[in-house]
C-alpha cells in the first residue's frame, strides 16, 4: 500500500513530451498519442516542440530538469546533439525515452523505440522499382540534408535503386521537407527533364508538393512515392495520384514509450532492451483505406 501511495503521489507529476514542430502531422500525431497515453495513466504532461533546433531542445531539457520531470519522451533534434542533454537528464535522475529517432550512444536513454527508417526506405524503394518497371528516369527529393533521417532514407533508397542500371536518377535536390519548395523545385527540374517517369521523396509533404507540380504540368501519371504515411498522402493514394508511401508506426511507438516510462517509474525497469526497432509498413492502394492518423488497423 505504501508503494501504492508512492505511486499515486508520483502520479500527477509531469512527464515531458518533446518533439519536432507540430506543423508536421507526423510529429503532431506522435505527441498527441504520447500525451493521451500519459494522461490516461494519470500523469500530468508538458508537450513541447524543439523545432529541430538542437540548442532549443537542450534548453528544454534544462527546463524539464529544473521542473523535476518524472520522465522525458523525446523525438530528438540530432543523433549526436541529443547525447549531452540525455546524459544530463540521466545524471539528474530523470529517465529519457527516445522515439522515432535514435541517438548515437547507448546506456544513456532507457529506451530508444525507433521505427526502422532504413528498412522503411528499402521497402519504399522496392515498391518504387516495381512501379517503374525497373527502368526509366527518376528524380529524388531529399529532406533537409542536415537531418539524420534524410540521410538514412536516401541511403535506403539507393541501396535498392542502384541495383537497377536501367533506372537513371536525372536529378537529386533537397526540398528541406517543404511542400512549397518541393513544388517549385519540381517545376524547375521538369524544365530540365521533361521525360521523367518517377519521383521518390524523403517524406510525404515533399511528395504532396511534387505531385501538385506534376499535375499542374499535366504529368499526373508520373509515379510519386513518399514516406511517413500521412492522411493527406493516403487520400492522394486513394485518389490514384501518389502511388505509395511508407508508414512509420509513430503513434504506436509513442504510446509504447509512455507505457515503458510508466513501468520504469513504478518498477525501475522496462523489462525491454534499450534499442527497439519497429518496422515500417508499405502503404499503397491495397491497404490505404485502413490507414488513419498513422495507425493501420489490422
Amino acid at each position, binding site marked *: 500500500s505504501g508503494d501504492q501511495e508512492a505511486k499515486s503521489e508520483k502520479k500527477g507529476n509531469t512527464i515531458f513530451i518533446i518533439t519536432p514542430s507540430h*506543423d508536421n502531422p507526423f510529429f503532431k500525431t506522435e505527441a498527441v498519442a504520447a500525451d493521451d497515453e500519459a494522461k490516461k495513466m494519470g500523469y500530468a504532461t508538458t508537450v513541447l516542440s524543439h523545432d529541430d533546433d538542437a540548442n532549443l531542445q537542450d534548453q528544454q531539457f534544462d527546463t524539464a530538469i529544473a521542473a523535476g520531470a518524472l520522465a522525458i519522451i523525446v523525438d530528438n533534434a540530432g543523433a549526436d546533439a541529443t547525447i549531452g542533454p540525455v546524459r544530463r537528464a540521466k545524471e539528474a535522475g530523470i529517465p529519457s525515452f527516445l522515439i522515432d529517432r535514435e541517438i548515437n550512444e547507448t546506456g544513456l536513454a532507457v529506451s530508444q523505440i525507433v521505427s526502422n527508417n532504413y528498412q522503411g526506405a528499402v521497402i519504399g524503394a522496392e515498391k518504387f522499382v516495381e512501379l517503374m518497371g525497373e527502368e526509366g528516369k527518376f528524380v529524388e527529393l531529399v529532406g533537409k540534408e542536415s537531418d539524420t533521417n534524410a540521410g538514412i532514407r536516401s541511403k535506403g533508397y539507393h541501396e535498392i535503386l542502384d541495383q537497377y542500371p536501367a533506372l537513371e536518377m536525372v*536529378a537529386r535536390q533537397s526540398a528541406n521537407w517543404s*511542400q*512549397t519548395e518541393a513544388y517549385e523545385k519540381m517545376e*524547375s527540374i*521538369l524544365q530540365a527533364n521533361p521525360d521523367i517517369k518517377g519521383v521518390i521523396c524523403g517524406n510525404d*509533404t515533399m511528395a504532396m508538393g511534387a505531385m501538385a507540380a506534376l*499535375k499542374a504540368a499535366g504529368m499526373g501519371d508520373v509515379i510519386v512515392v513518399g514516406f511517413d504515411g500521412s492522411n493527406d498522402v493516403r487520400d492522394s493514394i486513394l485518389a490514384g495520384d501518389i502511388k505509395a508511401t511508407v508508414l512509420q508506426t509513430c503513434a504506436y511507438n509513442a504510446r509504447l514509450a509512455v507505457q515503458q516510462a510508466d513501468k520504469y517509474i513504478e518498477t525501475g525497469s522496462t523489462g525491454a532492451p534499450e534499442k527497439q526497432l519497429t518496422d515500417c509498413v508499405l502503404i499503397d492502394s491495397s491497404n490505404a483505406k485502413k490507414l488513419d492518423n498513422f495507425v493501420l488497423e489490422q
Partner: protein
Amino acid sequence: MKNNKQNISIGMILMQARTFIALFILTVAFTLLLSNRGINFLSPINLLTVTKHVAITAILAIGMTFVIITGGIDLSVGSIVGLCGMIAGGLIHEGLNLPMFHMTIYYHVWVIIILTLILGTLIGLVNGLVITRFNVAPFIGTLGMMYIARGFANIRSGGATFPNLQGQARLGNTGFPFLGAGKIIGIPVSIWILIIVLAIGIYVAKKTPLGRHIYAIGGNARAARLSGVKVKRITTIVYAFSGFCSAIVGLIIASQLVAAHPATGETYEMSAIAAAVLGGTSLSGGIGTIGGTIIGAFVMGVLGDGLVMMGVSEFWQNVIKGVVIVAAVIFDQMQQQMKARSSVSLTGGETKKGEEAEIA
C-alpha cells in the same frame, strides 16, 4: 528640356543597368551551361516557369519596396502569406462553422478570395497603426506581427495542412486551383497578377501624389510633416498595401499546391527585402524604384531556378546565392562611381520625372 530628356533616358538605363547586367550575365551563363546538357533555358515555357516562381517574390517585393522607401521594413509578410493561405484553405475545406446555429457556410471561391485579401490588408493596417500611432520601430512592430500571424496560422488547423482545395461542386466552392494552375492566353494567372500589381505599383510610385509623398516621407519625415504630408496616414496605407500583396501571394501558393500549409512563407520576407535592395532600394529610405525591384526579384529567381536545373547541391546553392547577391551590389557600386566620373549631367543629379536618385 529636350537635351535634359536625353540625358535622363541614358541616366535611367545606366541607373538600372547594374541589376540588368547581373541578370543578363546570369541568364547567359545558365543558357550556355545548360545548353551543353541539351536544355534550352530560354525556351518560352521555361521562361514562363521562372517568371511564375519570380512572381511570388516579386509581388511581395513590390509591397516591400514602398515600405522600405518610407524608411520602414516589413518582416511580417512571410507569416501573412502563411496565415492568409490557411484562412482561405480553411474556408474552402471546412467552410465557416457556426456551431450555435448548427450550420456550416461554404462560400463561393470569389468571396473567399476577397475575404482573404481583406484580412491581409487589415493585418498590414494593424502593422501600420502600431508603427505610426504608438511609434514603434517598424522592425520590431512587424517582427511581433511575424510571430503572431505565424502562431495563428498554425492554431487555425492545429498545425495540420488543409488538403484538396479544389472544392466540391455540390458545395459550389470549386475553381480555387485556377489562381495557381490556370492560364490566360497561355500565360499563367499568377504572372497576370504580377503584371497587374506591377502596373499599379509603378503608376502609384511615378504618377500620383501618393507616390511623391511616400518618397518624401522616406527622404525627410520631419520636413514631410511640416510640408503638410499626412505622414501617419500614408505610412499606414503603405503597410496595408504590403499586407494586401502578402495575401495575394498566400492565395497563389495555396492554389498552386491545392493545399494550405501553416509553415508556408517562412523567410519570404528576406527574399522580398533582398530583391528590393538588389533593385537599388535604399534601406535608409527615400530611394528606390519598382522597376529595379522587379529586376532584383528576377536576379534571385533566375539564380534559384538555374542552379536547381544545373543540379547544384543545396549547400553550394547557398554559397553561390550569397556571392551573387553581394557581387551584384558591388558591381552596382563600381558603376555608380564610373557613372559619377563619366557624365556631369548625372552627377548634377538630373532626374526623370518621378524618378528617384540612386544614391542619397
